[in-house]
């Protein structure tokens, strides 16, 4: 339902997103994983047409068959909320503290779909039920500060669903929440995607949440998509050195504790730090930090190579067919 | 200059103009400002007297310039004096908290409630009216303003992590105030000072108008206005000129302060 082909976003010399290519059918759930500077947020913004004006874009993007890669703001405004919607990280920041949450949720319905107040209210109540907010009719009249973090996030999700979008982009939806609450929100997003046959893009650095919520996974580093494949497969048997390093760096109670000599076990780390956008290496973005790199890595950008029918990584060391 | 907000640029230009003219008057005015020439009274604008002469034959331009100097001096001293005391009180209240903070804030409330005019009249009654008394009265009304905004800004800085770290390091409250609080509250204080400057100019004009400030022969826009009042139908321009000067000066400082506030807005300036 949405497809990106060789989509690039750059700010002068700094390339934020390089040749992003993906396609998503209705009801599919894609995870986008990466750390700071990976380009995952830029990817999410691109899917909403909310890339900053100062950026240069290239490549194609089709939403339900409509070419949107170079669409104007006016065209995007018709798409947003109706076809593509987004849920952000900080629920408190995204809700107007001076308006009741019901009014906030009803606004797009009345604006875009032209619903009367009574019908919008009924819709809002059913949406609140759908996202699991107890006592929905009473909650409509409450202000954001009267709700808990998890409830606010549910309100944001209800807001995003208000006009029945075909694609929901969730950018770090669980980061600001406690672990238990985060789990429930993640499950909610999966249920909504199934029941509404709605595509879901789950952007997060939380690998646990992503493994629960998604079927396919894309790993990003320095603006490149370095690995993609079925979520469970990528997490269990990663191909790309960065993915391997990232997974190994997670604290794991099974591998922690003290060794035979009594010394605490250290975590395996990826040496160095992510270079700033304008100083990324020209070839493979991960060169300079990779433990298995060869001379070609810094100079030549690796193409996506398929290890089997579903999993691919952009690495020179992978043998297998080119994408 | 591109990128700077318009109000900042316009304000800076106006302020520069006024301050420049005031400074210039220290060394040169077209004529002696207090030089009377009864025979040449109510003169029309000419090459000799660019804006004409007033009811006592004094050159209008020279008077305006001398008045600018007095106005700037009064405003500067009043804001510096009142500001220093107010900022010190605000920092003290914020650093010590507890009953000290309460006491300082209640004093500030009192200061706000006390009419500045009344204070000026009291001073005049005891010491006789003069420009010095105007300075003291205006300083007095500045103290609570600066105390309040300094305390509010400082309280915010005290909660920042790097101040907590300084406390954990064992720094004294005085050292923290000097090293961390003061530099970080400087911006809002400077903005407020610029705006208070505008207020001080107006206050000086008002006090002089009422005869509580600049005494003749000292020049003041306010005094010129007061003298021109009785002559409104004969020579209205004698009221318009000082009025315009007051307006330009106050507008300049207000815009400058506004512009400074815009560029120091932490949401725009934050480095990440």
């Amino acid at each position, binding site marked *: 339902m949405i497809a990106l082909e060789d989509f690039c976003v750059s700010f002068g010399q700094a390339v934020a997103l390089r040749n992003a290519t993906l396609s998503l059918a209705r009801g599919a759930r894609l995870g986008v994983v990466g*750390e700071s500077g990976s380009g995952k947020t830029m990817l999410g913004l691109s899917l909403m047409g909310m890339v900053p004006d100062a950026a240069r874009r290239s490549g194609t993007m089709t939403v339900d068959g409509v070419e949107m890669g170079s669409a104007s703001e006016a065209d995007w405004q018709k798409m947003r909320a109706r076809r593509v919607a987004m849920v952000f990280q900080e629920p408190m920041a995204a809700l107007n503290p001076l308006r009741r949450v019901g009014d906030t949720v009803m606004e797009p319905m009345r604006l875009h779909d032209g619903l009367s107040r009574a019908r919008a209210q009924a819709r809002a109540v059913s949406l609140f039920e759908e996202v699991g907010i107890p006592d929905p009719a009473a909650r409509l009249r409450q202000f954001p500060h009267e709700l808990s973090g998890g409830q606010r996030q549910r309100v944001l999700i209800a807001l995003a669903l208000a006009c029945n979008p075909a694609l929901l982009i969730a950018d770090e939806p669980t980061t600001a929440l406690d672990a238990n609450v985060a789990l429930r929100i993640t499950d909610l997003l999966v249920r909504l995607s199934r029941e509404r046959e709605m595509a879901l893009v789950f952007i997060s650095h939380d690998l646990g949440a992503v493994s629960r919520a998604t079927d396919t996974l894309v790993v990003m580093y320095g603006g490149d998509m370095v690995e993609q494949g079925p979520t469970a497969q990528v997490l269990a048997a990663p191909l790309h050195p960065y993915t391997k390093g990232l997974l190994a760096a997670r*604290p794991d*109670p099974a591998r922690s504790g003290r060794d035979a000599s009594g010394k*605490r076990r250290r975590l395996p780390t990826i040496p160095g730090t992510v270079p700033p956008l304008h100083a990324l290496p020209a070839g493979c973005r991960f060169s300079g930090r990779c433990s298995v790199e060869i001379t070609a890595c810094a100079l030549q950008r690796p193409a996506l190579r398929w290890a089997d029918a579903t999993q691919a990584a952009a690495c020179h060391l992978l043998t297998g067919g080119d994408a | 200059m591109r990128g700077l907000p318009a109000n900042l640029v316009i304000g800076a230009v106006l302020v520069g103009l006024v301050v420049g003219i005031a400074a210039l008057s220290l060394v040169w005015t077209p004529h002696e400002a207090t030089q009377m020439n009864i025979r040449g009274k109510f003169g029309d604008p000419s090459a000799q007297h660019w804006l004409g002469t007033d009811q006592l034959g004094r050159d209008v331009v020279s008077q305006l310039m001398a008045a600018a100097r007095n106005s700037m001096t009064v405003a500067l001293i009043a804001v510096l004096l009142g500001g220093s005391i107010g900022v010190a009180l605000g920092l003290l209240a914020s650093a010590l908290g507890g009953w000290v903070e309460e006491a300082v804030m209640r004093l500030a409330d009192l200061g706000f409630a006390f009419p500045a005019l009344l204070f000026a009249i009291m001073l005049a009654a005891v010491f006789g009216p003069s420009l010095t008394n105007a300075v003291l009265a205006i300083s007095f009304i500045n103290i609570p303003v600066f105390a309040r905004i300094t305390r509010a800004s400082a309280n915010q800085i005290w909660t920042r*992590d790097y101040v907590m*770290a300084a406390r*954990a390091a*064992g720094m*004294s409250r005085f050292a923290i105030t000097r090293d961390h609080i003061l530099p970080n509250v400087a911006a809002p204080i400077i903005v407020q000072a610029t705006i208070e400057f505008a207020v001080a100019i107006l206050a000086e004009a008002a006090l002089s108008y009422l005869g509580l400030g600049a005494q003749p022969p000292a020049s003041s826009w306010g005094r010129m206005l007061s003298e021109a009042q009785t002559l409104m139908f004969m020579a209205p321009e004698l009221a318009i000129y000082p009025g315009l000067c007051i307006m330009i000066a106050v507008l300049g400082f207000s815009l400058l302060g506004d512009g400074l506030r815009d560029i120091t807005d932490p949401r725009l300036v934050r*480095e990440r």
Partner: protein
Amino acid sequence: MTAPVLLEVRGLTRRYRLPRRSLLRPGPVLTAVDNASFTIRAGETLGIVGESGSGKSTLARMVMAFEKPDAGQVLFQGQDPHALSHSALRQLRQGFQMVFQDPYGSLDPRRRVGWSIAEPLRAMGEAGTQARTAQALTQVGLSGQDAEKYPHEFSGGQRQRIAIARAIVTRPALLVADEAVSALDVSVQAQILNLLMDLQEDLGLGILFISHDLAVVAQVCDHLMVMQHGKTLESGAVTEILRGPSHDYTRSLLTAAGVTP
């Protein structure tokens, strides 16, 4: 011979009165920390795990003597910081230091990094700050020349290293890390955790490690305490709690962290 006790906390309690709901009755009392007790010896790491509202941050503030407890006692190397005068407390503070959560807020943006690191030394009027600053920087994996730079020139992980350098420059005995890695990316978090473990071994530090992430705590700590709504639900050796938690809440934290007991 067992290591000396650095920090002993007994029955620490802190209550807040919430704002009134009606004019007639006073507001309800919230017990932020309820009767917390623990001990940390030199070379040991104690983890405190809890979600928002658990009271762990309030506990940290009382240990650091930023807030006075309503009941109970804090003893650092046998002395109660809350009972000391201002100047005596400042002297005692050299022995226990803190690392904060937000790498972007914990350094004064207007000061060079070296100045911030040397602050604890200046507080006690010590000399030789430049050498000790450079030493602290190298200990955390940065270079002595970085002292001349400003915080905005560094990444989040590097700023956290600088914050750690500031915390160790006085050669403290105890380090309190309050969500010190929570704002960092996974790969950077691993580097900082390794650094903390290295420093503990090299300097013989005791560490009080506060986090909402049970997996992180299990990585660096020998003992842990689970807090919820101010109460201590369980406490004990990490290995035992992971094997068999005695509370459902702890079990739910484990599941959320992806660990099966």
